[in-house]
């Protein structure tokens, strides 16, 4: 009864066009007040407590660091480096866009931000060079999703807080799957370009590449601080994020001289706003999943599924299907906060490692970002290119299917995700 009311209300409110955060909060508040004997004060208290978590603080910080770098020339320098490395191959420009997204993903924690940073520079360049639109926008929209798989990742922080697992380990677990999917995207682009016989650019000399590397080196050092610091156990992810912000501010103002102090306030506010959108969903989703937990709904689901004899292989397939559809209608943070508390207990009982499960969830969210109706990357890519959502989606199809293959590999070969964290910790 309670779970039915809760999910029924959530879906109806969302269908009415109530903001997702409010739909989560209001359906919980209604159920809590009318169907349980909880004191309504508890909801206001939980709203506060749900954000009173040290790990969540990394979210606005990574967003701020990413915004400071993408506002200036750091993104351009990363693109230059990428194209000096792979620009001469068949399909050189789209390949460079993918490479640049991979590098930028390691600086920024969000996937739409990666699409904006790389896409606004590369889209024009790729179309002007005479590539079909699909090559221009498909590669940008899909490789941008790597932003949430390659650390740092906001989506992984949310999973870590929800599933109560180490965010540092999750970050490390994302590296190999991220590089694997990136290589697959590069390969598909390369093979396709070779077949279609696109013209090539002149290969750059070793010296030119070195210069491009030097130009981008300050921005690349951010990656060393974030990943290296967490990897070596020097920083917690939150501390690494604060170091990344101070570093990004330093290079944006004093080294690259992209922005002045007067513009910092604007970046601060826009970052606070982007973060608040995510954090407000988290605060509301937290009370939603609190109600699920106190009503023992996850346990009921677990015992139901175990009785019906579900095996890990079938369960993971189910998870992928459920997450794929949920990811189509909601953005990643709400999907994770609503579904992970339900699905993780089952996964744990079936002996699935929570870190591996997290990587499966994240790759799934990548797919959700490039499939309608709520594919955030589709929206961003469509606003950069002026193409319709449908055109962007169709253009992205070859690469989206590549990510799907990556998802299957990551789902059924846990070692891809677990090798690095197990090796390190």
């Amino acid at each position, binding site marked *: 009864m309670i779970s039915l009311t809760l999910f029924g209300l959530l879906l109806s409110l969302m269908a009415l066009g109530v903001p997702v*955060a409010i739909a989560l909060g209001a359906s919980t508040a209604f159920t809590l007040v009318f169907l349980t004997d909880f004191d309504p004060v508890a909801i206001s208290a939980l709203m506060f407590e749900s954000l009173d978590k*040290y790990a969540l603080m990394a979210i*606005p*910080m990574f967003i701020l660091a990413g915004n400071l770098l993408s506002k200036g020339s750091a993104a351009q320098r990363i693109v230059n480096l990428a194209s000096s490395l792979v620009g001469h191959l068949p399909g050189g420009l789209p390949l460079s866009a993918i490479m640049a997204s991979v590098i930028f993903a390691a600086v920024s924690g969000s996937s739409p931000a990666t699409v904006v940073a790389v896409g606004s520079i590369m889209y024009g360049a790729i179309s002007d060079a005479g590539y079909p639109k699909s090559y221009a926008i498909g590669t940008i929209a899909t490789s941008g999703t790597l932003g949430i798989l390659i650390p740092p990742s906001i989506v992984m922080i949310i999973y870590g807080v929800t599933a109560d697992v180490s965010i540092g380990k999750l970050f490390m677990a994302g590296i190999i799957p991220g590089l694997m999917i990136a290589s697959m995207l590069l390969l598909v682009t390369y093979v396709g370009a070779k077949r279609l016989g696109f013209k090539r650019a002149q290969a750059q000399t070793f010296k030119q590449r070195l210069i491009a590397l030097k130009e981008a080196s300050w921005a690349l050092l951010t990656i060393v601080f974030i990943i290296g610091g967490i990897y070596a156990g020097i920083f917690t992810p939150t501390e690494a994020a*604060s170091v990344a912000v101070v570093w990004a501010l330093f290079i944006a103002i004093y080294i690259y001289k992209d922005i002045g102090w007067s513009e910092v306030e604007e970046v601060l506010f826009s970052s606070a*706003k982007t973060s608040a959108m995510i954090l*407000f969903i988290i605060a509301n989703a937290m009370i939603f999943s609190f109600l699920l937990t106190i009503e023992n709904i996850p346990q009921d689901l677990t015992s139901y599924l175990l009785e019906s004899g579900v095996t890990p292989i079938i369960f993971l397939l189910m998870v992928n299907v459920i997450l794929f559809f949920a990811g189509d209608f909601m953005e990643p943070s709400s999907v994770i906060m609503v579904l992970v508390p339900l699905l993780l207990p089952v996964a744990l009982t079936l002996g699935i490692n929570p870190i591996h499960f997290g990587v499966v969830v994240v790759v799934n969210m990548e797919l959700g970002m490039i499939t309608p109706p709520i594919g955030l990357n589709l929206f961003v890519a469509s606003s950069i290119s002026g193409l319709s959502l449908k055109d962007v989606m169709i253009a992205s199809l070859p690469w989206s299917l590549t990510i799907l293959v990556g998802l299957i590999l990551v789902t059924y070969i846990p070692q891809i995700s677990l090798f690095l964290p197990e090796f390190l910790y």
Partner: protein
Amino acid sequence: MEKVARLNRFVASYALALAVLLTFLNVVLRYIFGTSLSFSAELASYLFIVSAFFAASLGFKERIHISVEFISKKTFLGKLARYVSFWITLIFLLFIAIFGIEFVSLAFDMNEISIDLNIPMWIIYMIIPISFFLAAFWHIKSDIK
């Protein structure tokens, strides 16, 4: 009106900036000087919460909170849905704000004190009623416009 918006924006931005600086400062103190300020982690956490809720409030003015649009806004059904959605959002925001006051007064009665900062928790809990009343205010304003 504009003054309230500017103040709201100021609080959201600079609370975040301070939270970053305090966290960074603690990293520096720990690795370079081997000490740490016990209160700074706690203060940073509260500043982060201040920034999140105050930016979320102002977000109702600038319509940053994403929703799914199934029904076209131009149809009768779409207009009705928008109307219902407006009221549900408003009632929810006021609900949290009003019970937030009770939450604050409970902490006041129990004399809860924060661990490291030694300030009464009710002052910190005020974030909830203030930011939710503000959110309700911006929500109404943005709809009238």
